[in-house]
C-alpha cells in the first residue's frame, strides 16, 4: 500500500494539540487535519454513547452587518432568513443562478441586521467573493473572520453536562438550532446548539488565540464522561449515518438544491433569491437525477466516485456514489449516491462497480440511524 504525504497545508490553532494527542494528520480541503486519534470506530462510539470533541477550526466564518443585511441575505440564500429570531440559527443553501450550489451554510442571527455565517473550509474564499460580488455598495458590511475564530464541536448525549461545567450562561433551555453568547472558561464565545453527528451537541466559536486553552480544558473537565478527541474520520461516519450532506461529495456546483434533497430549506414562497427561477422550473419539470441513500447487500463498500449500474451484467450506467463507508452504529455498509429518477425509489435494486465487479445495493430511506439525541 502507499501512504502519501502532502505539503503546504494550513494549520488550525489546535495543530500542536493534535500532535500531542497522537492524531493522525491528513490533508483535507487544504488543511492539515486529524483524521483520527484512538480510531474512527472508537471515536464514533464515544459520540453516540457519551461525548467527543472535534476541532473544526478549518470551517470559515463570515460576519454580515449593517443596514440592509437581512434583505441582502434573503436575496442570496434559499431559506427564509426573515423567520430567524435573534439567537436562532438556520441551515441554508447558497445557489448560483442555475440553482446549483455555491455552498451550504449556517446563518446565526445576532441582531436585526447582524449575522454570523459558518461556511465550508474548502469554500471560504469562493463564498466570500460571491458575497462581495452581490453586496450593495452602501450599508452592508462583510468581514471574513475565518482566521480569527477557532471552532470546536462538542457532540454526544453527555455534551450538555460537559459544556455546562465550562460556561457562564445557562443553556439548559437552549433549543436545537439556537445559540447563546457567553464565556467558555472565561473566554468570550458563541455557543450554538448545532452539530454534524445527529447527537445532542454544541459548536462553539472562540478566538483562535484561546483555542488551545479551551480544547485542553474540555478534555480535562470531560474526563469524567470519558470524552474523546475525535477526527474527521468519525465526523464523516457520524454524519453519513444520519444522512447529512457534505459539500464537495454529495453536492457541489453541478447539483441543484432540489437534486441533493435541500428542498426543505428552499422556500419558494419568500421574496426572490438567486437560483429561485431555475429551481422553480426544475420543480415543475421534475428531477432527472436525485441524491439517494443506499445500503450494500453484497459484502463491499461503495465509495465516492464509484459508478452505479442498472443490472449486474449490463452496461446501463445510472449514477455514481457520492459518499460511502461502513456505519459503526448501524452495522451496515452505507452510502449516498446520485441516480436517475427511475432508480430513486425506496427498494430499488442498484449495482455499484467496485474494482471491476458489480456489487448489489438497495435504495433505502434516510437517515440510516434514527435514534440520535440531537433534537431531544
Amino acid at each position, binding site marked *: *500500500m502507499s*501512504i502519501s*504525504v502532502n505539503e503546504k497545508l494550513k494549520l488550525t490553532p489546535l495543530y500542536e494539540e493534535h500532535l500531542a494527542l497522537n492524531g493522525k494528520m491528513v490533508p483535507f480541503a487544504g488543511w492539515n487535519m486529524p*483524521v*483520527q486519534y484512538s*480510531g474512527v*470506530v472508537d471515536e464514533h462510539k464515544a459520540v453516540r454513547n457519551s461525548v467527543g470533541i472535534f476541532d473544526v477550526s478549518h470551517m470559515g466564518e463570515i460576519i454580515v452587518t449593517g443596514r440592509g443585511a437581512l434583505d441582502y441575505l434573503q436575496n442570496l440564500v434559499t431559506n427564509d432568513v426573515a423567520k430567524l429570531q435573534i439567537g436562532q440559527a438556520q441551515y441554508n443553501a447558497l445557489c448560483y443562478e442555475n440553482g446549483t450550489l455555491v455552498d451550504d451554510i449556517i446563518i446565526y442571527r445576532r441582531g436585526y441586521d447582524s449575522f454570523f455565517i459558518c461556511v465550508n473550509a474548502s469554500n471560504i474564499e469562493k463564498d466570500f467573493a460571491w458575497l462581495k460580488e452581490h453586496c450593495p455598495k452602501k450599508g452592508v458590511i462583510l468581514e471574513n473572520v475565518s482566521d480569527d475564530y477557532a471552532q470546536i464541536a462538542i457532540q454526544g448525549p453527555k455534551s450538555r453536562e460537559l459544556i455546562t461545567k465550562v460556561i457562564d450562561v445557562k443553556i439548559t433551555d437552549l433549543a436545537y438550532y439556537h445559540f447563546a453568547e457567553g464565556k467558555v472558561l472565561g473566554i468570550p464565545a458563541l455557543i450554538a446548539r448545532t452539530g454534524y453527528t445527529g447527537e445532542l451537541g454544541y459548536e462553539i466559536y472562540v478566538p483562535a488565540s484561546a483555542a488551545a486553552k479551551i480544547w485542553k480544558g474540555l478534555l480535562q473537565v470531560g474526563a469524567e464522561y470519558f470524552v474523546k478527541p475525535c477526527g474527521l474520520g468519525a465526523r464523516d461516519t457520524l454524519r453519513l449515518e444520519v444522512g447529512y450532506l457534505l459539500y464537495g461529495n454529495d453536492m457541489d456546483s453541478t447539483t441543484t438544491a432540489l437534486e441533493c434533497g435541500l428542498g426543505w430549506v428552499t422556500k419558494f414562497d419568500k421574496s426572490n433569491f438567486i437560483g429561485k427561477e431555475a429551481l422553480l422550473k426544475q420543480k415543475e419539470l421534475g428531477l432527472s437525477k436525485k441524491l439517494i441513500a443506499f445500503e450494500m447487500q453484497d459484502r463491499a*463498500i461503495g465509495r465516492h466516485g464509484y459508478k452505479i449500474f442498472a443490472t449486474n451484467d449490463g452496461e446501463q450506467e445510472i449514477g455514481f456514489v457520492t459518499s460511502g463507508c*461502513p456505519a459503526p452504529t448501524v452495522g451496515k455498509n452505507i452510502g449516498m449516491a446520485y441516480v436517475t429518477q427511475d432508480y430513486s425509489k425506496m427498494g430499488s435494486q442498484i449495482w455499484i462497480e467496485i474494482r471491476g465487479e458489480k456489487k448489489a445495493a438497495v435504495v433505502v430511506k434516510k437517515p440510516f440511524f434514527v435514534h440520535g439525541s440531537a433534537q431531544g
Partner: protein
Amino acid sequence: MSYPNELKYTKEHEWIKIEGNNATIGITKFAIEQLGDIVFLDLPKVGSSFKAGGNFGTIESVKTVSDLFMPVTCKVTEVNQSAIDSPESLSVDAYAKGWLIKVEIENVPADLLSAHEYENYVVGGN
C-alpha cells in the same frame, strides 16, 4: 514500534518472511496503524501468479482503500481466510496471525528492505 529482524520489507509497507522457496506476506504494523480500523480485505485466488511490484489485492479501512503490492515474483499457494473473515484482527497481530498470503517464490528483487532500513524509511516520514 517493532520491526521483526527476520522479515524483509517494501516501501509500500508489505512484510515478507522468506523460508527457502516459500514465503509468507502481510502488511506492517506501521501501515495498519496509519490505515486505522481495517474493515475489508480483497485477496487473490490460490494459484494466481504475480510479478514483484504487482497489485495483488486491496485493504480497506473505514476511511480509505489501499492497494497491496507483491514484494516478490511468485505464485499464491494459500490465502488467510480468517484474516478475510475478521480483518480487524490485523491490528492485533500484524506479523503472525495477521498474515495475508503464502506464496511460492520465483524471483526475489534486490531492493527489499531490512528491518533497520524499513524503520529508517518510515521514521523519515514516508
